[in-house]
């Protein structure tokens, strides 16, 4: 029996990976379509309750509602005190806040 060639194994593996990549793209499309109703319900709740932010970090007020916060809150009591919640490094201040800061100084 003729031994299988390395190129056959490699090309088959590569084809399998490309096929999985295509399946991934199709799966993403299918899930997007399936989840749109859920996103619509969330958007309706945002309107009905009057919400402004995603609930991503609950440890500090300025990362829970970054769009509503001011520049002082992360530094709690005075401007040179340290901002100490880890999520502060994941969620930098929004651009419109930085603009205000530039205007103040």
């Amino acid at each position, binding site marked *: 029996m003729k031994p299988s060639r390395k*190129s056959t194994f490699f090309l088959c593996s590569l084809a399998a990976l490309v096929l999985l990549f295509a399946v991934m793209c199709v799966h993403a499309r299918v899930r997007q379509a399936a989840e749109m109703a859920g996103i619509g*319900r969330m958007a309706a709740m945002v309107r009905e309750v009057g919400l402004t932010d*995603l609930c991503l970090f609950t440890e500090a007020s300025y990362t829970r509602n970054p769009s509503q916060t001011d520049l002082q809150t992360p530094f709690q009591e005075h401007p040179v005190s340290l901002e100490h919640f880890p999520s502060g490094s994941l969620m*930098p201040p929004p651009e419109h806040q930085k603009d205000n800061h530039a205007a103040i100084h």
Partner: protein
Amino acid sequence: MLQSIERQRHLIDFTLSSLMRRKGKNFSVLFVYTLVVFLLASVMFFTSALRKEAHLVLTNAPEIIVQRSLSGRFSFIPVDYGKKLADIRGVVSVRERLWGYYYDPEFKANYTFMVPEKLPVEQGTIAIGAGISNTRHAYEGDILSFTSPDGVLRSYTVKSVLSEESQLVAADIILISTEDYRVLSGIPPGHATDLVLTVRNSKEIATIAEKIKKILPDSRPIIRDEIIRTYDAVFNWRSGIMIVILCVALLSFVIFAWDRATGLSAEEKGEIGILKAVGWETSDVLLMKFWEGAAISLTAFLAGVLLAYVHVFFTSSALFLPVLKGWSTLYPDFRLVPFIDVNQVITLFFLTVVPYTITTIVPAWRAATIDPDSVMR
């Protein structure tokens, strides 16, 4: 045609045999390479899906919110301010919004109390987010107690638990009636947390915000576009931890590229010399090196992207969770919708596969153009 394919297959056979002779080194390169792509693609998928969902969900956020700022800090806004705001041309309605945070020392969790705009809540009852329900094991009909600023413990019956699917926006939310919240929060009568404005023409929002600032100098208007832009900016590649991860990944690639571009090992040079001596053309050597680079980088790219997809959309970014949770006791349990940005995937491909393949070919080309005798010495 068939002959050409057969030639390429022979070259691939030879390349793979050559790679397997140094399997320890090549497998570790493949592993690290896959890991770097996995990390980059995970961050990319996660931020892109969050940005898209924020965009879709927050388009229904209030058009203009007016807060009051005293001594550079947030302050409750007098409800009377609403009359001045209602007089601005283009403003359809002004509504007070009551909301605030509550720290639960028993569970060490922060909740967000909110008086809903349209969902009526009966006095003495509350509706809680699924995150709170899971943390406190509180369900419909249970009684939850919170302490008001005067030290009195006030109890409310859980009327409903908000749906699990809404956790991305409402995991920590407690909906309460206006009367109950005024007592629980201690917000003085005639004041609100902020005011919400609806406008007739959305194109006028920015102009109205400017007018508000002139009429009420102690106010801070926040417009809907700014809310949405916040999430665009926060999960942008230039922001926060994203830039750190990107720098680490790029540095790894610089090391990769440096390792490849600074030259071949004596063994690899010897191999090229022997191939040239037995009659291989320079183009054959380059083609072999191309397949070598392509085999490693294509495999690493595809495997890394696929693993990242599973990580972000099937395991809810399990590896990022400790970082995302931070000090939070209450963390939303949400599964992101796979909104994949095709441009980002293409960029990732060109940033990873192309440089690696090129840096594999260049030193081989230098070795292949030298006299085989001197290469083998």
